[in-house]
Every structure is written in structure tokens, then in C-alpha cells.
């Protein structure tokens, strides 16, 4: 395959985004996007968890403090959690966490929670595209403005 020059956004900034995807819906949705050969920006790195509710708020804060440009949590649609109610916790925690991020001076848009089912490969690709664009518009994450140290560092 011929090598192509890297495409660059308006400012040449290519965000790096950490994605947590639940095993049952969103990870399968991401797999389906691959099987369907849906092309998307190479911005996201997916970490598999069994349920989106496994993601501790500290993980998000840690990622942003370490300089990653964004964190995306993907889970089953509300009402369709494999563990019946895990994603409701995710939703509630997500709302609180965004408020906290804003309070400490991190753009809350850097952290997003979305729902992608196992049959929604196209939605996974769209979500990656959208979130990448949004974070691109925010520019690089400059940790240290809000939280000076990573609270999860032990």
C-alpha cells in the first residue's frame, strides 16, 4: 500500500484520546466498525473493561493529568446494560465528574460518556470522529493548570 502523507488538521494538532469500552456493547461495536472497514481518525486507544461502571473517576483524572487530550467512556445504551444497571452509575458519575473537571480548570468537553451498542459499528466510528473533532477544536491538553499533581500517583 502506498504510504500517504499524514493528514493534518487546521493547526496540525492530533489529539490522543483514551477510550474505555465495555466488553458487551461498545467493544463489540468497535470490533464491528473494524469488520465493516469503517475508516476513522487514529486518535483513540481502546481499553476493554467488562462494564463502563468499572471506570473509576480517578482513571479519567489520571489520564488528563498525564497529558492525554481526552477520555471517552463508552457503554451499552441506558436500559440495555449487560449487568442491568451499571451504565446508570456511569451516567451519574460522568455528570459529577464533568462538574469537577470544570471546577479544577480542565475543559469538561475533554471527558465524554457515550452509548454504543454491539450492533452500532457506524455509531462507534461517528463517535470517534466527533469526539476527535471536538477535542481538536479545544487544542492540546495542558495539564497542571488545574490539578498540579496526579492524585492517583502513589
Amino acid at each position, binding site marked *: 500500500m502506498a504510504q500517504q502523507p499524514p493528514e493534518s488538521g487546521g493547526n496540525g494538532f492530533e489529539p490522543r484520546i483514551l477510550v474505555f469500552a465495555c466488553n458487551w456493547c461498545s467493544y463489540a461495536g*468497535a*470490533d464491528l466498525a473494524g469488520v465493516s472497514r469503517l475508516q*476513522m481518525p487514529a486518535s483513540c*486507544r481502546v481499553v476493554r*473493561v467488562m462494564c463502563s*461502571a468499572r471506570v*473509576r473517576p480517578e482513571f479519567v483524572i489520571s489520564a488528563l493529568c498525564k497529558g492525554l487530550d481526552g477520555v471517552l467512556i463508552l457503554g451499552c445504551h441506558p436500559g440495555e446494560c*449487560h449487568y442491568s444497571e451499571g451504565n446508570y452509575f456511569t451516567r451519574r458519575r460522568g455528570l459529577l465528574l464533568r462538574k469537577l473537571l470544570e471546577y479544577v480548570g480542565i475543559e469538561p468537553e475533554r471527558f465524554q460518556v457515550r452509548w454504543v451498542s454491539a450492533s452500532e459499528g457506524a455509531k462507534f466510528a461517528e463517535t470517534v470522529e466527533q469526539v476527535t473533532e471536538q477535542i481538536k477544536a479545544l487544542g492540546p491538553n495542558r495539564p497542571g493548570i488545574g490539578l498540579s499533581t496526579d492524585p492517583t500517583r502513589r
Partner: protein
Amino acid sequence: MPRTRVGVFVCHCGNNIGGVVRVPEVVEYARTLPNVVYAEDNLYTCSEEGLSSIREQIREQALNRVVVASCTPRTHEPLFQSTCEEAGLNKYLFEFVNIREHCAWVHMHDPARATEKAKELVRMGVAKACYLEPQEEFESEVFPAALVIGGGMAGMTAALALANQGIKVHLVERGPHLGGLVRTVQTLFPTEQATAEVVHPLIARVSAHSEITLHLESEVEDAAGFIGDFDVSIRSNGELQDLKVGTIIVATGAEELRPVGLYRYSELPNVVTQLEFEEKFKTGAELPDSVVMINCVGARVPERTYCGRFCCSTAIKNAIWLKEQNPQTNVYILHRDVMAYGVDIEKFYRRAMELGVRFVRYDLESPPVVLGEGRAEAVRVQHQLMGRELDLPADLVVLTTPLVPREDNERLAQLLKVPLGGEGFFLEAHLKLRPIEFATDGVYVCGSARYPSNIPESVSQAYAAAAKASIPIGEGLVRVAAITAVCDERACSACGNCVEVCPFGAIELREGRFGKSAYVNTAQCKGCGCCVAACPSGAMQQRGFDDRQLLCMIGALAEEMTDGTAAP
């Protein structure tokens, strides 16, 4: 504790990964990572050659962690885990890195970024692997009953195959009777046998079988649980009923496309589909003198690219039937290609030609046009061989349309947590290697729910699905992945958050050696990790997904940036 020795195996997957990601570069990179003592690339890591290499290197290099960077854990994790076990390595010391679905296949035109991403994913995988710990699995019982959704040919065959092994089967059918779509078909190709002769004896056997519980006019309303222990609720005549089953077969079939807006269908009374032809003309209506059939209506077109597979055979069958009723009938089949595959159907096609059925090829650029006022009188077609337009007189126009996915597929797919393909049919775990299984354990698919399938195909798939669905029930036990929660009672403050959030009631507070603390009942724990994220003191952890493992993945991803080394 012996020193951590990680082995990394990076798969080319033929050209699938290797055609995009520069695999040798990823291997070179893996060798530079902390604790990695060995790295190699394989053409196919899942081939016997690749697997024996993993076993060999575990022994030779004394590996105590194995990382495979290839496809998705949802299909291949069990294979690599058992390979590790064969070499004496606890299977929970294996870590999967997905560089195909999540990398090569979605960045096909960007090898440079795909290669960098693959390196990062490997770095994260190795970081997690270093913190993996050996685990013991628990066994859980399989409820000895199966659910079959759909009472067509596939569903009835699967239900019988299971019931004949002595397995209790719940057969759920949405309609008022068994038989599915094929009930509306009068005769079958290529034997020209009456459908009733094939279907009715099957319906009788299914209805009479003591191990089969029939739920007619019923739909699956809700489903939860895991292989061996599914809780399904069905709605029958407005009433909800709860069923417990060990495995589930999806055999919901498909429906004929009604080509509204195409070839003046639904505008002219004498333009019908093949199924409408079966229902109306093969059950006694007066037969027309000249019939034109148009194939590939709504199939192999930009908005529906797939081939309906057996619609050509259906058209040939009905054309032969017309010729047999009256040899003077003019029958034309306008087609784009004739799919008469296999050993019997080609003969059938020849027979149609011998009987005088005319086959005319058209192409999508100049499709046939139905002519007539108030009713179809002729069909205009660009005859490819003659190179000119022909007006074929028609008393009846029959449109050959493909089967399309049922509208309800989306809802059922969400309930069972299984995927649909782009066309809306159910999607199996692997097209070639696991054609009737879903990636979700304990759920299987057969018949036209997967893609348009004729009767022999539906029946063989149903046998396969029944065989697969009976294995866990026969074994009686499934091993439950050791990804359950565990509480460190010394760190637990007995706040009870975990008890509150556990969806399965698996946690309780108990008096123990260190005072009151949370206790996880492993048999009830399903391994979601809700409680771990809710624990304020870090006492609760999930095996295989503990805080250290996940945090070090985040650290590994961020590392490169703090070093200041940029992507190419």
C-alpha cells in the same frame, strides 16, 4: 516471585494487519519495552505454527506473561488462553492486544499512524500484562433447557434436533402457527414437491414432541444473563412469562422485500412479487397467457448490495410451473445474472430453457420499463444480445425480490447483545470459523436470520446450531471467567457502597478477622466491576481488571508524551 518475563507475538493476519501496520517495526519496538524478553511476528499467530511457537517460547524463554497483538479477544482469547495453559502457563497471565479491528482495519490508508498506534497498544498491553496474576476459575451449572426463537424451518429443525437429545426446548413463534415464511410458498425447488408435504410433517412432529414447549403468538420481551443461566421473559397474548434457559438459538428468518415504487409495483394490479404469485396464482386464480418476470428487483443495487441467493431459483421454479400448467404460456425471465448454484439447481435452470422459458439479460444502466395504463400490458427491455429494445407483451409482471432482514432484528439484537451486519441481518462470531455462533457465549444463529437461506441450507445450519447449543447443556457445567470482585478486608471500612451498587446482590457485610468488612459471594458475582469503582478505599478489586492494571495502561499510553518523542 520470579522476575517478570513477557513474550510478545505480533500477528500479520496474512495481509489483514501486515498490509497496513508495519509488523516487523512493532516487533522491534516491543523488544525495547520493560520486562519484554522475547518478541516475534507470525503470519497467523492463531495457526498451529503460531500456537506452537507460543508454547515453545513459554518453555524456552521461561515466559511468565504472554501478549498477543492480533485480532479481537471476543473471538480469539479462548484459543490463546488455552495455548498458554497447554504450555503450563496460567491462562490469566495472557493479555490480548487488538491491532486488527481497532487499528489496521480502521486506518487502512494511513500505515504510518496505524503502525504508531499499534506500538502504543502493544505498550499498553505489555504494561498491563506485567501486573497480571494467576487466577483459578469457578464452575457454574448450566440450566438444562434451550430457547429457540422462531418457528420456521430453521427454528423447528433446531428445536427437534435438541429435543431428540432429551433437552427441554422452548420454541417461541411470533405468528399464530408454525412454518414460517415457507408456508406461503406452494411448491419447492428443485424437487417441485408441494411445500405442505415437507413442512406439515415437521410441524406435526414439533407440536407432538414431549420435550418441546410451544409458545405461539409470543415474543421475547426481555433477556438477561449468561451462557448456562439466561433469564428470558416472553409475552404471550399480552401476558408475561419468565423462562430460564441455558442456551439460545436465533432462528427468526427474514421477509420478502415489497418493492413499493419499483416497476410500478402497488400502482398496477397485475404487478406482483414471487410470493404473491405463489399465494394467488398457484392456488387457483386464472392463469395469464404471457408472463414477464424481472429478477434482482431491489437486490444488487447501491442501496441493497447483497444477492438474495435463491431468488433466481424461485423465478425458475415458477416459470417451469407455468410452462407445465400450459406449454403455450409465454414466460420471460429478465435477469442480470442467473445464480443457479450447486449440483441440482443448474439442471433445473437447463430444464426451464428446454421448456421454452426465455432468459433475457438486462443491466442496471438500462433497466426494464413496465408499460401500460391502469394495468401492465408490456415490459420494455434493452436486449443485450440483440442490441435493441424489445416490447414483451405481459398479462402479468412478477417481480423477483430478495429476502430482507426483519424490522424486529434491531430490538432482538439489543436484547441478546449480539451484533447485526450492515445489511441488518444477524452477524456471527466469524464468517468462516464460527458461522453459527455469536461472539456472545451460549447464543447461536441459523437460517435466514443470518442471510437468505433456502431449505437445505436452513436445515443444515439448524442442525449445526442445535449441536452447538447442546454442548454446554450436555456438559452441565460452564467455567466462569475468573474476573470476579474480591475485597481486601484490611483496607475495607465497611461503608457498604459496594453492597448498594452490586446489581446481583453478591456482596454482604460480615464480621471477620479485621472487624466488619465486605464479602463477595463469587458464585453470584458476574464480574462487572461496579463495586470496584464505587469503593472509596480501594479495598475492592476486580480480578484481571484491577486498579493497578488499568492505571498502568493509562500511564503507558501517556508515557511517550512526557518523553517528548513525537509520532512520525
